[in-house]
């Protein structure tokens, strides 16, 4: 009995090691059906990879657009709106900034994000790719956060430690992370 329990716990832990981590908040009072047009602002980059935030932002915009749920403004249009609304720091806009941006772009919501980790990670002789990102949706009539989610994907898994290899390509991990975030949005 004890061996069975220990074995089950060990299996559960092993399975959990491959899972993503993340949190979510969704405003129950928000009518998301009213969100037709969204602007994805440049993401804040806290990782050591200079292009990580931009890459993640593009993948997020792409997959959000491909979901068919909302119309995502092209990045050039967002850049024009940022200029027009005179945003001092587009990665961390204030509530007032969000309202002004919404009027400039005729968007019902803006999405901001923070990339906490992006790129290669090492543990001993093993390497792997990892991404950790959190995103927020702010509705432009009041500048309030109506949805927030975070996720972490990749890393050095059991098999990578055992047999080596560099893990999954960064592109695939980024897509996985974004799909996880969008899965939370559509849950």
């Amino acid at each position, binding site marked *: 009995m004890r061996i069975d329990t220990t074995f089950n716990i060990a299996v559960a832990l092993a399975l959990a090691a491959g899972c993503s981590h993340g949190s979510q908040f969704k405003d129950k009072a928000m009518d*998301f059906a009213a969100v037709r047009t969204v602007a994805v602002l440049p993401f804040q980059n806290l990782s050591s990879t200079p292009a990580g935030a931009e*890459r993640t932002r*593009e*993948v997020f915009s792409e997959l959000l657009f*491909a979901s*068919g749920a909302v119309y995502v403004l*092209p990045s*050039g*249009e967002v850049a024009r709106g940022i200029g027009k609304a005179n945003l001092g720091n587009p990665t961390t806009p204030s509530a007032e900034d969000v309202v002004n941006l919404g009027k400039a772009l005729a968007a019902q919501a803006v999405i901001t994000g923070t990339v906490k980790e992006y790129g290669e990670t090492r543990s001993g002789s093993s390497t792997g790719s990892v991404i950790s990102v959190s995103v927020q949706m702010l509705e432009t009539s009041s500048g309030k956060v109506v949805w927030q989610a975070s996720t972490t994907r990749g890393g050095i898994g059991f098999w990578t430690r055992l047999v080596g290899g560099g893990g999954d390509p960064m*592109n695939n991990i980024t897509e996985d992370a974004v799909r996880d975030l969008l899965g939370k949005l559509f849950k």
Partner: protein
Amino acid sequence: MTSWASCSSSARSLAALLCAALCGCAATAAAPGARSVKAGNAPPLRPIAVFPLVNAAGVVAPMREIGDALRRQLEKQGILFVEGAPVDDFLARHRIRYTGGLDAATAVLARRELGVDQVLITTVVAVAREPMPRLSVEARLVSAADDPRIVWAGGFSRLGDDSPGAFDLGIIRSFDELAARGFAGLARSLAALAQHREVPSAVCPPAGRFRPRSSYRAAALDLEKPLTIAVLPFQNLTRRRNAGDVVSLAFVRQLQSLASVRVTEPGVLRDDLLRFRVVLQGGISLDVARMTMELVHADLALTGVVRSFDDALNADGVPRLEYTVMLLDRRGDEVVWRSTSYSQGDDGVFFFDAGKVSTVGDLACRMAQSTVRAMIDRPPTPPRKIPR
């Protein structure tokens, strides 16, 4: 240093006249410096101007040798053309430095002063001699008219060991031979066009493995009805120079091959963007897209971003390409297609490199072709709601 063309032009003209006299054929000279080479009993072909080749390979390229290879193949097919000194003088006289496209003013001048009806624009997309010769070229024939139009678009992408065959007997180690074989196909296609015969298809073979990884398609998009599409310069986020131009040229060729689509000549577009001081930094805004489409009377504007571009010039290298492309609709003022593609030459290759794509030019062609196919084939993205 005298141009190779001007040194040999008088000698070659004399040879052509002697040949004509001996063979009893008439040697036609439609314009100063024009050359015509008898090609069997082919009817007289309309003259074309061959603009100096553009180097978009990102490295120093043997442009003279490549130009020679093109000229030889055009002569072999009996295509009447003007190149070398007369074209150089024409460009110098009118201070035209950019030969990667044809704007309306240059087209009218070319028709009047060079006596040509069409201009051949050729861009070298990738080139290398070592460790294995490689050459990728995009070309198009543009009418020398008030409203220049793309009449024909083609290209090729070759690596010396594309088809090694048994005991590697099929490997081409000579750059000149590789260039000759590549341009032979282009020249045959041009000759077929000039003789009103069926022109071989310029599209790359379809490949499902290069289809976009994600895409959005609006219900309003219909590429099977008559449309004019302006292909805007792609934003280049890579370190490889001209990566954006390479991908945009690949899309020009693939879209031009659609029967219902007319692609705006990139030279016309470039001229308009410069004239109105339009800067495409940080991606295209809807204002700019709208204005551009109004200027060139296009129904759709295609633009995008190139994020990764790897020529794979080392021996075991695999080309890689990643881009996002968008189609903007002038009427609805919104994006009707958006997709991201990233592929490498050995995607879907498992056994003995069978099906491997060895050059980035070929990869760009196939990915562009797959993207265009997806624009036509994929059903519209169904609407979806975000639940509370």
